[in-house]
């Protein structure tokens, strides 16, 4: 009986255990890994990509995937900085509104035409990137001096950047929505069996549209924070964020087939990816290897997931 409990913990928290294990190894062998500055660095990197990944988790659990988030980060950052000259509220409101619009269009096309979400959102990635490039004329955008907008990415609270707390708050809210509300339950149902959910009277299309809006808005928020932190934004800033977010979700153990997983797992997954990449940077390995390692992590995680779930049946 007791060994069963341990077995369950080992199975359910495998990623966390591996992460802790890696953390100990990196602390012992990678120079300056275990220092306050680096640990805060890891938290900072986790926060921005983490917001994207937590939002994306909704559409993945609902059984689709949103690859347009990378461009949404870019266009949101570009819009935020160019409106920072007007007022902080416009700099926040405009990017969020645009993100909602993109998510709505994604969701409507995918649900109403029953279209493949990978291809549609990949095409949307290209469209939004093109629009961001047109908007800035292909150039970088700089923010207004001494604007309050700068505070979002550059102020800190008891030694930690404010946006780390924003990430924590967003993750907690999304986790609560996912696991303790009707909307969250419907998201799981939509992801595990669309036809049964429709028969049960769940408005699956609407639920899936909400998930695309949530992932787009989270990407938009990440874009605002990133632009406020760097205070320059390029229409290509968010390139590749979609892959990192998908990698984090998959590593955490959320199934890409939908219906399984949660926000907590995504948070663990994003810590995992960021920690590994961080150690690689500290070890001065070529940037190219980051791509290779990410690819291997994605495949191994999915393969292990398939294997263990097959044993369960």
């Amino acid at each position, binding site marked *: 009986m007791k060994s069963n409990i341990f077995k369950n913990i080992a199975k359910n928290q495998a990623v966390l255990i591996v992460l802790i294990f890696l953390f100990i190894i990196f602390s012992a062998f990678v120079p300056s890994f275990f220092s306050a500055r680096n640990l805060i660095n890891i938290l900072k990197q986790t926060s921005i990509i983490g917001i994207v990944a937590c939002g994306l988790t909704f559409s993945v659990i609902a059984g689709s995937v949103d690859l347009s988030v990378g461009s949404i980060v870019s266009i949101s950052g570009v819009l935020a900085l160019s409106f920072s000259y007007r007022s902080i509220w416009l700099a926040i409101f405009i990017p969020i509104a645009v993100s909602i619009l993109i998510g709505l269009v994604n969701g409507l096309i995918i649900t109403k035409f*029953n*279209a493949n979400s990978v291809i549609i959102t990949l095409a949307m990635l290209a469209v939004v990137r093109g629009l961001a490039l047109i908007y800035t004329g292909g150039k970088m955008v700089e923010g207004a001096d001494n604007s309050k907008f700068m505070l979002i990415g550059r102020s800190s609270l008891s030694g930690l950047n404010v946006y780390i707390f924003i990430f924590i708050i967003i993750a907690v809210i999304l986790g609560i929505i996912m696991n303790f509300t009707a909307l969250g339950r419907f998201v799981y149902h939509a992801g595990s069996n669309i036809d049964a959910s429709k028969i049960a009277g769940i408005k699956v299309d609407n639920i899936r549209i909400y998930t695309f809006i949530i992932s787009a808005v989270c990407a938009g928020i990440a874009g605002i924070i990133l632009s406020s932190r760097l205070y320059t934004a390029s229409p290509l800033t968010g390139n590749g964020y979609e892959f990192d977010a998908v990698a984090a979700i998959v590593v955490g153990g959320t199934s890409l087939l939908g219906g399984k997983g949660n926000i907590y797992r995504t948070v663990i997954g994003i810590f995992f990816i960021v920690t590994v990449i961080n150690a690689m940077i500290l070890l001065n390995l070529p940037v190219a290897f980051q791509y290779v390692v990410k690819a291997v992590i994605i495949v191994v995680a999915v393969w292990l997931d398939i294997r263990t779930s097959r044993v369960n049946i």
Partner: protein
Amino acid sequence: MERVERKKVFDFLNNQKIFLILIALFVFLSLANRLFLTYENIMNILFQVTLTGIIAIGMTYTIISGDFDLSVGSNMALAATTVVLLERFGPVVAILGALAVSTLAGFVNGIFITILKINAFVTTLAMMIFLKGWVLFFTKSETIQGQSDVYFKFGYGTLFKVPYSVILFIVLYVIFGLVLSKTIIGRNIYAIGNNSKAAHFFGISIVKTKTFAFVLLGFLCGVSGLILVSRLNTASATYGSDTGLDAITAVILGGTSLSGGEGNAFKTFQGILLLGVLSNAMIVLNITPYLQQVIKGLILILVVSLDSYYVKANKFK
């Protein structure tokens, strides 16, 4: 009797709609711009679509079998990198090496999808990142330049005023179009795309058939990479970033369904020509590259939506 005739005409028009759009576009553009309907411009369009067009043949196979491949652009860049890096061992080794590496990548895709049962999206997405990483590593994130100009003979040589690469492009379409429509392996690909469970019960090997499709696609990515080097004699990780989406667009635009089981290489040929004419028209009309990117993305969204809507409507008929 007359009704049957009319239905036949309607079916014919419906099946050839891309061809008709293509002709209409041709007429419109040649009226709009005198330079459009010249031998040079037509050859130019074919020359431009060669790389994506060759990959689109293989993409047709994978899409008909019910999957798609996002790694083709990186795979092409890897072939180009390999051929430039292996230059000092002579062109034969370099060319065979590049084809081998690309084919191997396709093979690994196929094995992961069929034997490890990881879905095509995850496998090919991971493969795309993986190959891109190696290309970045080998090129040191720069554009690498080949020394010998032996490949230019192929890249810019012509036979009866037709570039070699365009001839190769058409020959590949004929060969693999026939393989798809006339051979057992081709028929098996349709069967799996239509209903993989039924195909399995009829004794068709899903592992062999799907892996064949991915191996072929990998090989064709290698061929595209070689043609790329024969024209530019350089390699870089930025090459091929749009190739995957363009190839998928050409296949779906031609009328092959993303849900698998139908379509053919001739349709893809029409799709790639239409895409080529549209790109050419956008350049002639002075549309900026950024806006071209937006328009191409919108075309993909439009054709996938129409295709999915058609499939959905048929399902509930």
